[in-house]
């Protein structure tokens, strides 16, 4: 071995009189060591394809798959132009690798179709996909209704212990974050309202504002949004992961419906917990308002409470709790739906969780809008 390190990769081409293209490779041809370009060889083929290609690798140092890629390209070029490919000048290992790389011809239909569809085609395809997705969603709802009917007759198959655990996970475990968010929401509402109302000397009405806003709509909605993120995602991910491990298939082939075993307890748990969390959130929100009242507006707790009690009626409370329970059902259904529709890879489960949250959010916001409209029409 010479003392000096071999120089960087070099490729030289020589034309010989007998129509041979001699490719001289020297130096260290490895993936990390700079450009491995076959441009010189390609130029030769473009201008005047030789009858054969030979190689001189006497000054070639260490090599790895970088040079193999080059060889494959040159070999393909020779095939395309009908030139003879003389591999005898290559190191033995390289020659064998080249033969291995070319041993199995490329399977005709294996390469995925990547046709860049026209814009109009894409709109059409997307519409058809959406239509079938919509059908899937309706299918899910229908199956759920059947399962619910069986549940009401007492014939649904799920474990009570699962239901109890879900109640804990989606009720009690959610208290800290519901406390924090609803308290702050009440506080913010009060702060914003106070700033405006103070200029009219009507600061006391902050209590009305926070009370009515929280109890009628905001308590249920913000709690719903929190639970969409918490429960919507977790239901979708739990069920999606079970699809990946074939646990849902195992249920089906054991004649236990995943709809009854997995979805039903989740919907029941959330529809029981959401009204309670809504009430709790309402209370926390009013507490936040009272905090602002006490610190900013010099309202005593009693004054604030009395003012609120005067503004908020039982109808409002019941209406808000009802909305909360509807949101609960929607979140659970959306999360479970996306979980059941999950693909079979880990990234698909992640997508299902995201979709579970987004669908839950959309569902409850739309429901909120509808409720506002209907309640207005009914004069509630």
């Amino acid at each position, binding site marked *: 071995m010479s003392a000096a390190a071999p120089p960087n990769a070099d490729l030289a081409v020589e034309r010989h009189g007998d129509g041979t293209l001699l490719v001289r490779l020297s130096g260290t041809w490895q993936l990390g060591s700079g450009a491995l370009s076959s441009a010189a060889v390609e130029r030769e083929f473009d201008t005047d394809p030789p009858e054969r290609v030979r190689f001189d690798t006497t000054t070639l140092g260490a090599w790895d798959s970088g040079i193999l890629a080059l060889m494959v390209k040159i070999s393909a070029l020779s095939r395309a132009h009908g030139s003879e490919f003389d591999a005898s000048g290559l190191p033995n290992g390289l020659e064998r690798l080249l033969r291995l790389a070319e041993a199995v011809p490329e399977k005709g239909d294996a390469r995925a179709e990547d046709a860049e569809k026209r814009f109009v085609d894409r709109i059409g395809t997307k519409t058809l996909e959406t239509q079938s997705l919509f059908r899937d969603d309706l299918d899910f709802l229908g199956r759920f209704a059947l399962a619910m009917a069986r549940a009401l007759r007492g014939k649904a198959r799920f474990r009570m212990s699962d239901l109890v655990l879900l109640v804990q996970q989606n009720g009690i475990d959610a208290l800290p974050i519901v406390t924090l968010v609803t308290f702050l929401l009440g506080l913010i509402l009060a702060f914003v309202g106070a700033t405006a109302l103070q200029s009219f000397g009507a600061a006391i009405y902050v209590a009305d504002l926070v009370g009515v806003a929280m109890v009628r709509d905001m308590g249920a909605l913000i709690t719903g949004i929190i639970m969409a993120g918490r429960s919507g995602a977790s239901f979708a991910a739990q069920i999606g992961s079970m699809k990946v491990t074939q646990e849902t*298939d*195992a*249920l089906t082939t*054991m004649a236990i419906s995943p709809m009854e075993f997995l979805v039903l307890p989740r919907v029941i748990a959330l529809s029981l917990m959401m009204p309670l969390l809504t009430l709790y959130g309402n209370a926390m929100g009013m507490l936040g308002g009272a905090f602002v009242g006490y610190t900013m507006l010099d309202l005593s707790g009693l004054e604030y409470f009395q003012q609120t009690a005067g503004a908020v009626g039982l109808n409002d409370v019941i209406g808000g709790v009802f909305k909360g329970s509807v949101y609960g059902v929607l979140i659970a259904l959306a999360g479970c739906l996306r979980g059941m529709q999950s693909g079979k890879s880990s990234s698909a489960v992640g997508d299902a969780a995201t979709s579970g949250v987004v669908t839950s959010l959309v569902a409850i916001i739309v429901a909120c809008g509808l409720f506002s409209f209907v309640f207005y029409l009914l004069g509630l």
Partner: protein
Amino acid sequence: MAYGDFVLQRDLTFDVGMGDIFVIMGGSGCGKSTLLRHLLGLNQPAEGEILYGNDSFTHAAPADRTRLLRRVGVLYQSGALWSSMTLAENVSLPLGEFTDLTPSEIREVAALKLALVGLAGFEDYYPSDISGGMQKRAGLARAMALDPDLLFFDEPGAGLDPISARLLDDLILELRDSLGATIVVVTHELASIFAIGTNSVFLDAETRTMIAHGDPTELRDHADDERVRQFLRRGEA
């Protein structure tokens, strides 16, 4: 069997006889596991019908399907144990749902089934706490919970060391002899195919249909199709 417009396999017609150990084999990607899914009702055939005895399975009403599936036990490739339940709870679930046993009787039977597959003492372990081979055995205990007369195994030998694979083969034969079960196995482990298979169907990925049907040993020696003989001889001529 089709996914949308893509037909995976066509013109599959075969009978699984009672007491058979029926092997579904073929090269990778030919649709063996998909065929199994169809036989279990997890996928619907694009065309055609599956019959259990004289009852149509494909067109059965849900209640009838439930009744037919109660006679079936399935061992999935990775066990497919329900990860939020212990091994005992996994085996007890079908017992609780479909029998009238008392809870203590169920506990006893579940412990017995686990002991039969060599997992005595592991009743309160969760699936994630045990090895892959043990998960498979637990899956088998669960598949046998209701003493089914029809068992399906999806690649039972996958990931098992040679001794465990042999023990599993012996267990399959034992199940056939003592329970009188009919067993359908999806596999390409040649040793197992010849050790236990009495009947088989060979699915081909290229032509997308079945190209052989019968006793594996017969097919190895006398199959019409070259590819089948090659497969069964591990590539030797």
